[in-house]
Every structure is written in structure tokens, then in C-alpha cells.
């Protein structure tokens, strides 16, 4: 589903990482851990196809791929519902309002649907951004720091979400500062000095 070959990235006068080889197959979870500034986000942006300055190869054999980065893609002047609708439309999917509301309810956002995203807290916005993961049937998920800024309940929801995605045969790559819930992780990639 996702494969990298001797992936290296040189930025700001130093090698962020060199010769990474990894593979994610259908139904597998890859965890990427490392301290701040070791290039986790850069790696994610390369995998998502947003960064082109790298050496080596990245092959993606998934039908579609969803990416959540540090910037969630929510316009502060649009409401929660409008933002989610727009993000789904960008993926070429148009879910009915009913489906949308059910998804938002699952993430505990039912009271905020008509609020502007600029008025929400960080954690709430993250949950809004995660709504499209619940709605879409993309095969590969790329979650950069998805678990931070979420409360306990949000984390649990996301974990079950990920679990069911993997059970359906999807691939998942996520990152965090420290090792997190080793239960569902198949592979771990440690970035930075060991």
C-alpha cells in the first residue's frame, strides 16, 4: 500500500533523516515516533505528496489517501458543517446531511455544527478535522500528531476509529512523541538519534 526506498531529506543544511525503508501493507499500522524537530512532519508531508524535495522513492498503491497535518484545513469563517462538507467535496464525496450529522454526533460535535470554526477550541477543531476520516472510505490514512490536543474521550473515539479502519483492511501511519498504546501497532519507526 505504501512503500519507501532509501528515503532521505536534506533541509536547512542538515540531513533530517537518511535512507528510510519501510512498508505498510493493507491492514497494518505504522507508528512513527521521535522528539520535536526530528522530521516527523516533514516525513508525513512527503508521504502525502506535499513536499517534493527529497531523495529516494515513495510508492503509494492506495486508491485514495487521507492526510491530517498540523494545519487542519478549516476556514475560521465557515461553520463546522460547511467546512466538513467542503473537505469532503475536495475528496470527491458528497455525503448527505443526515450522514454528516451522524458523524458529527459520534465525535461529540452536535452542538457546534452551526458555529464558525474560528470560535472553536483546538481540540474541537481537531475533532472536526477528524470527521472526514469517519466519513470517507480512503484506503490509507496519514495522521500526523492526531492524538495530541484531544481529551480522553476524543482519544478513545479516534482509537476505535483507527481500529475499525484497520480491520476493514486499510493502512494507517501515525506519529506521536512517545510510544502510544502498543496494542494496535504493527511496526514502529523511530526517527532522530537513537
Amino acid at each position, binding site marked *: 500500500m505504501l512503500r519507501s526506498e532509501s528515503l532521505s531529506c536534506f533541509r536547512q543544511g542538515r540531513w533530517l533523516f537518511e535512507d528510510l525503508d519501510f512498508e505498510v501493507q493493507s491492514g497494518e499500522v505504522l507508528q512513527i515516533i521521535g522528539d520535536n524537530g526530528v522530521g516527523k512532519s516533514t516525513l508525513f508531508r512527503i508521504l502525502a505528496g506535499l513536499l517534493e524535495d527529497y531523495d529516494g522513492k515513495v510508492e503509494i498503491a492506495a486508491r485514495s489517501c487521507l492526510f491530517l*497535518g498540523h494545519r487542519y484545513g478549516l476556514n475560521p*469563517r*465557515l461553520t463546522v458543517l*460547511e467546512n466538513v462538507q467542503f473537505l469532503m467535496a475536495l475528496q470527491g464525496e458528497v455525503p448527505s446531511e443526515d450522514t454528516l450529522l451522524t458523524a458529527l454526533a459520534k465525535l461529540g460535535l452536535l452542538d457546534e455544527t452551526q458555529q464558525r470554526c474560528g470560535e472553536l477550541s483546538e481540540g474541537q477543531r481537531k475533532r472536526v478535522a477528524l470527521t472526514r476520516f469517519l466519513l470517507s472510505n480512503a484506503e490509507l490514512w496519514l495522521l500526523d500528531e492526531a492524538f495530541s490536543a484531544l481529551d480522553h474521550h476524543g482519544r478513545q473515539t479516534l482509537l476505535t476509529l483507527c481500529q475499525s479502519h484497520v480491520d476493514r483492511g486499510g493502512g494507517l501511519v501515525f506519529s506521536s512523541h512517545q510510544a502510544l498504546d502498543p496494542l494496535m501497532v504493527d511496526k514502529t519507526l523511530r526517527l532522530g538519534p537513537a
Partner: protein
Amino acid sequence: MGLLKRELRLLLRSPAEVVQSLLFGVLVVALFPLAITPDPDVLRQLSVGLIWVVTLLTSLLAADRSLLSDFEDGSLEQMVLGVAPLWWVCLVKSVGHWLTALLPLIVITPLLGMMLAMTSETMLWLMASLLVGTPVLSLFCVLGAMMTLGLNRGGALLLVILMPFLVPPLVLGTQWAMTLGQPFYGYLLAGLLCVSLMTLPFATASVARIAVGR
């Protein structure tokens, strides 16, 4: 289509931006009689050029407004990753820029013309030239804004980059209005618009991929 709807919705949600470009236009035009002379004959002679220059400046001023917000909140990333062709995204961004920054100014051109003692015939041709010429400005402004997105001192850079490209629409537009619609200039301006419409969204799209990598 969703993109266009979103752009229009954002436009309606932010009347302040429209008001800002209107205010800028009116205030700058009001400064010219004070700076040069209140003599209506002189003002009439200068009027077409002045209004065109003011329009051009307004266009530059608003160039990176909507793109910058999309860049900062990450929408641009999602647009690049999305299924909609990127040139379409860029075209919609140009349309949005034109609607917020330039169309309102074109609508109040009669007011600006009155301030500069214009004759009604010149005013009609001026509005026509603005209608045909300003979309070119928008297309180039979005291209320039995309190029400087996420760079330091983007504003000054934008000015240097865009200036040469804004000369042809300015020259052709003012000439068309001042010769009271000599078809030669009209055809050229329309031709310029067609060529820009067909090429610039693609150029902008190729730069957008680079911009999100910053």
C-alpha cells in the same frame, strides 16, 4: 463547483474586505485633486489613467488576502491533495479575487469619474475597459501571490514580480478608454484576456504545488 460556492460564501461573510478596497479607491482618487489641481480640465485629462492606476493598486493590495488565509489554515494543502483539478482551484481563486477587490470598484467608477470631472462617454468606455481588463489583473495577482506564499517579505516581492505583467493590461485598457473605444485596442485587450484565462490558471497550479511545500 463546491469551490466556487465556498468562495462566494466567504465573500458574503466578509463585507469588510469589500469595503476596504472601495474605501481605498475612493480615498486615493480624492487625494489627486488635492495633490495636483482642482482644475476640471486637467483632472478630466488625467482621469482615465488615475482610475486605472488606482484599480491596479487595489488589485495588488488584495492579491494574497484569500490565498494567505487558505495557506495558513491548511485548506490549500487539502485543495492540492483533493480531486478537483488544481487549475480549476486557481481559476476560482482568481474569480474570488476579482469579485472582492475589483468588481466593487468598477461598480462605483461613475462616482470616481464624477470626482474627476469625467464626461459620461469616457466613463462608459472606462468601465468597459475595466470590465475586460481587470480579470487579467486578477489572474496575474493570484499567480504572483501563489509564488510568494510563505516567503518572508512577500509583499514587496509581490510588487516586483507583478509589475511587468500588469503593464500590458494597463496600457491597452487606458488606451481603449481614452480613444473612446477604438476597436483595435478592444480586440487586443480581449485577446490578452483570453490568452491569460487559458494559460495562467495552469501556471498558478504548478506553483501551488511548490507553495504548499513551504
